């Protein structure tokens, strides 16, 4: 039953990619650039001391979230871990609400209650943004369960990092996914490092991390995330499996993060060489690669891409201005969003004491 999807045709020729219009392709470029510019500006303001806590940057991995999200239909849902800015922007969350959340402002997507690791947009089928490594994997399973229970033809795309594959919750999820025939797709974004520990030092594996799925009888696939065509082609097969067979898949996407685990990662150039990072930046940048594809295919010219770039930079800078100008949440809001019943002022919410402040 375990199988590695074999595809002899080149990714660009896959039907799902052939169906892309020039506008679709430019949109993919725009999405990736927006993610990168947003994060670069967020880093600048983090370093200026305008944000608290951690900031886990997605720079270098943009093609994965962008490619996967570009395939999502009405009943496809997505959930990820704490490196969640890229997925958030890809599903259509605005830079303003995302940047304001980093600044801890009331206009943030979580009203200043979640921070960098906890973005959510259920209206866009985006379920976070989760801080505990692999903690989101059973939730993704639950989304798939909910879809199946409600008789909806959809998939739950649950992202995780290569560091999460050794958590028990992930394995429990795989077992149940296959046992219950749930339309969940685990997308392992393998950037090679579980924080500062390389894959070789953190995971026992044969040929790949995805291959572990075979032990559960789950279909699996591995591919490079550098080329967005490839991301789309392989992910599409998994989504089809979910939609038509209501069956799970494990995907492992090879990718690379340019920055540290978080921007406070003091050893980001110690557990890997500067040369390694520069090599990826120079030769494996998914945005540069997609740019070459667009130019080679004659989809657009360089000037147009530069314009997109500038617009993304401006949008990011404006989002920082928006965030700066926004007010911090009112202290009263500390007690909001704890209980649904209390927020809605239902009879249940008004019965008994819910908060125990003196």
């Amino acid at each position, binding site marked *: 039953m375990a199988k590695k999807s074999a595809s002899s045709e080149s990714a660009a020729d896959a039907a799902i990619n052939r169906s892309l219009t020039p506008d679709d392709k430019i949109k993919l470029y725009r999405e990736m650039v927006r993610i990168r510019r947003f994060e670069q500006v967020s880093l600048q303001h983090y370093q200026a001391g305008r944000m608290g806590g951690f900031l886990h940057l997605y720079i270098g991995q943009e093609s994965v979230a962008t490619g996967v999200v570009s395939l999502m239909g009405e009943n496809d849902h997505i959930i990820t871990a704490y490196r969640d800015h890229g997925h958030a922007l890809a599903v259509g969350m605005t830079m303003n609400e995302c940047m304001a959340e980093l600044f801890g402002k009331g206009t943030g997507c979580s009203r200043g209650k979640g921070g960098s690791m906890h973005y959510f947009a259920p209206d866009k089928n985006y379920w976070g943004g989760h801080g505990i490594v692999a903690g989101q994997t059973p939730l993704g399973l639950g989304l798939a369960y909910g879809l199946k229970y409600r008789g909806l033809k959809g998939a739950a795309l649950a992202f995780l990092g290569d560091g999460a594959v050794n958590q028990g919750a992930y394995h429990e999820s795989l077992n149940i996914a296959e046992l219950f025939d749930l339309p969940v797709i685990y997308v392992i974004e393998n950037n090679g490092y579980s924080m500062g520990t390389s894959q070789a030092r953190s995971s026992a594996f044969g040929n790949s991390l995805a291959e572990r799925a075979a032990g559960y009888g789950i279909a699996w696939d591995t591919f490079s995330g550098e080329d967005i065509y490839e991301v789309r082609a392989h992910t599409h097969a998994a989504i089809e499996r979910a939609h038509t067979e209501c069956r799970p898949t494990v995907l492992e996407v090879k990718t690379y993060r340019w920055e540290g685990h978080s921007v406070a990662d003091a050893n980001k150039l110690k557990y890997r060489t500067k040369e390694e990072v520069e090599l990826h930046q120079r030769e494996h940048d998914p945005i540069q690669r997609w740019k070459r594809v667009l130019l080679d295919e004659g989809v657009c010219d360089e000037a147009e891409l530069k314009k997109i770039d500038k617009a993304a930079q401006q949008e990011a800078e404006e989002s920082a201005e928006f965030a700066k100008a926004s007010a911090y949440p009112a202290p*009263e809001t500390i007690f909001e969003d704890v209980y649904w019943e209390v927020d809605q002022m239902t009879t249940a919410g008004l019965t008994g004491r819910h908060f125990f402040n003196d």
Partner: protein
Amino acid sequence: MPKLIEMPKLSDTMTEGTLAKWLVKEGDTISQGQSLADIETDKATMEMQSFFEGTLHRLLVKAGEKAPLNSPLAVILEEGETAPDNLDEIIAAAQATANTAAKPAAPASPSSQSQTKSRAAASEGPSTLLPRAPSPNRRIAARVPGVKSSPLARKVAEELGINLYTVTGTGPGGRIVRADVESAEPITAAPRAATPTIRPTAGPDDTRTNVSTMRKIIAERLLASKTQIPHFYLQVEVDAAPMMQFRAHLNQTSEKTTGNKYTVNDFILKAVICAAETVPAINAAWDGDAIIQYKSVGLSVAVAVEDGLVTPVIKAAEQKTLLELSQSVKDIAARAKNKKLSPDDFAGGTITVSNLGAYGIDQFSAIINPPQAAILSIGSIRNAAVVNDKGAIVSGQRMWVGLSGDHRVVDGAVAATFLAEVRKMLENPTLMLV
């Protein structure tokens, strides 16, 4: 517009950094994302990237120097840009605001966010965040020294105007509970109805002086004692002649050898201590549901001072020789008069001696010093005609010694035994030295 490279926040806990090494020099062309310097943070050394493109115009911090978060480290000029005349001012301004910019501004005052009030009210929490008016000084329900009472009993007592000293507690450990206060109420109800307490009237020529703290405490404690402790009184007349002779004898040599002159009271105290060791039941206290019998004798000595009376304690008195005792009493009396006693000097008393002999009082019955079980009342030594053991009337020296006892702790027979022991010691003073 010149761009300032500022000390970046490179970790979640960083407040300042050391510029370990510049990786660029003045005049270099800088691209976005280029590493400019190694910054040493509280965690490690990290590279600082440039967010700008242009030419490095000026380095503001030397390698090895520390700089606070956000303080300017270098100036970058855009391609073709020349440094403005006020560059130094711009740098100075950035230096001045360094660090303060890192601190998030305080959230808006909650009162300005009225739109959330209704939800907030439902969740009941927010009010705790609102600034609170300072609470007025509340009157604390009077906790009466030496009287165990529940908070509710105190509250009810205050409402009904009942003095807790007049109430007997039936709760655990003798605690006065609400029911005790309520059942005590009828007794005091009648007088309370007219005048809660009997108050004196003062005319224009009379003086009214507010009582001192010491007097207040004396009043409280002795009222508590007299109203709560069931006193009983014994008196015995002692032949003081042997003690007086012994004292005279002792002082003949003592003043020369030790510099100490024994007082009559020294012998009386020593006798009381010895007797308390022989009859330890007297050296005790009532604790509601138990009697505490003390191992050691804490001798409280009543000392008259200006505006009152204090009873400092000679601790472990049974371990003191007559000389040590005498010196201790002199020390403590001197410190009492000079108001040099510390709270520790008043702690640990188990029995009290009050001596009014110096005032010519023949006999009296003192009020027990709570929570002790007994107090000795010593009268003056006077010449008297006594019938000697041969039936003849002769001249003698006599002294009355009284004892007030807490009948809950000791009964008459025990107290009498104790008093007899005191008399035996005084009449055979050499026994005290054994």
